[in-house]
């Protein structure tokens, strides 16, 4: 799962956000200067490929590996802190 920006026409974006393994964050939707739209999404690597094949321009902001590493590290830090504080 990577964090991406997906840009394209309204028609392309409607098709892309309906694809499996893409979770668009609709509050991030913006209209670009050229009239196209851009939305952020979390997506599997396969879904990113499918979105590109459908005509969308996809920019990967955080790769699948980096997302997994960052969130696992954060979870470990939080868990460690909870233990140290005696939180239940």
């Amino acid at each position, binding site marked *: 799962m990577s964090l991406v920006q997906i840009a394209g026409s309204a028609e392309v974006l409607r098709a892309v956000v309906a694809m499996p393994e893409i979770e668009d*964050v*609709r509050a991030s939707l*913006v209209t670009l200067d050229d009239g196209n739209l851009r939305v952020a999404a979390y997506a599997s690597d396969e879904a990113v490929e499918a979105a590109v094949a459908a005509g969308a321009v996809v920019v990967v902001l955080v790769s699948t590996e980096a997302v997994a590493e960052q969130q696992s590290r954060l979870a470990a830090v939080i868990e460690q802190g*909870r233990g140290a504080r005696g939180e239940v």
Partner: protein
Amino acid sequence: MPPPYPAITVPQTPAQIEAALADLAASFPALCTLDRFPDKSVEGRDIHFIKIANGSGSNRPVMVLIGGVHARESAPPDALIRFAQSVLVSHDGGSDITFPAMSCEPLPSGPAVDYPDFTILASDVKRIIDAVDLYIAPLINPDGRLFDQLHPPSSFTGGWRKNRRAHADPAKIGVDLNRNHDIAWKFEDYYDMALYRADYPTGPAEAVDESKDTYRGPSVASEPETANVQWIVDTKKPAFFVDIHQFGRKVLLPWGLEDNGDDPTMTFSSPAWTGKRDGLRPGSLSLPLTGPDYKEFVTDDAPHFVRKNLGFIGDTMRDAILASAGVVLGSTAPDPRRDHSTFEVAQAAVLYHPVGGGPVTGTTHDYAFRKQFDDPARAPVFAFGIESGHEEEAGFHPDYASPPGHYAKIEREIHAALIALGTIAAKLGKPCLVATATTGTPDHPDVVTLRRFRDAWLGPRFDRCYYRISPPVARYLLAHPWARAAVRHGLVGPAAALLRTFPEPATRAPGRTPPERTAPGRTD
């Protein structure tokens, strides 16, 4: 823990947030009180909030700030805790709130954008805390937050969104609290579903599917966390309500239900429209050729001009964020700080249209907003959703380290927006509508005299009566110059003159020192 409070470097757990609230109440007992929501979370956690105020009285405007409705949105609860700490330390010590100059590295690869230092004056904080009852509930959904923190998503989702309502099927755990509130929750009754589905085929299906992130719940306000939000809205009666979310750099205005309109017969509560509202944008090819395009009513009448002021307040928060970033307002010169700090101010119902997402029902800020339509004496209510942060600041889980400074930037922006809103709340106060209508300004000495007398001597019962009767009276006076002159010279002027002949305590209740109040802001 006494101040100064350290910067937050890791997303805080629910227990840490609860402890921080208790600590603030213990450290600033004259300004801050801790209170508990009536309902525990679905997993049995107590949920607290704080009230920050210097002064008391039924005429103080109320501002309610909530966060952490959606579990994975990690920054808003932390930023709200920091906001509470900042304003309490500032008011207590008379010190400015200062944010040092910083850099933020937008994803995917920068370059870093430099932001200047940003200062919130102690006098501005004092003006707010002295005039406004400020309620902060930083974490509505503690169960969901802890689950998200301890369970990195294994699928393609960005994290856990819902609460943790139990279900035998793990795929069906949880309810989207921001679809569960009592405002058109049963959207099948609100919309003409055949029309609505023509443009938005997936939204309704997802809202009734337990496995989806936007599942609305088994019944209206079924979730204890939802009941808590409705309780604080119902009992504290905020004139200003903000639900802070993440992410997208948006200030969302009501309604989420439909496009806003000016026909007072088109309301969510009108049985004549049950099952007949289209939910479609103006110009949609799916709209029937005959019949009106339904739009949800928002009054823009005197004295509150709610529709106009929603936009004004939203723009003010946007501009405050830009100013905090060092952007020169009005300048069109290229500035990366503007590119990375501009919040779009937009109606919630309109936002999702281009990618096929329809208007939304059951949201927190629509629930708060509806209160003035249920009970006109509650007017005005200005309710907002803020989508803080951005995907270039790592989406739902911003990096708390600096660099890259993602969380630190979000925290500054939330401070800037909330101080701007609080400043408006402090100026608005509870206006003397009739007297203001006759003099044309809330700052006229006669209006100020009458308002002080009312605030000092007349209680909540008078308020309820006055704010039920006075809006239509004020509207009538604004439309009829002869009536305005008659009330001005026959009632308002003589009453104010009479009160001024009394010694000063006549406008001050025994044993109470009314807070210093600034002139209420114009509402036109």
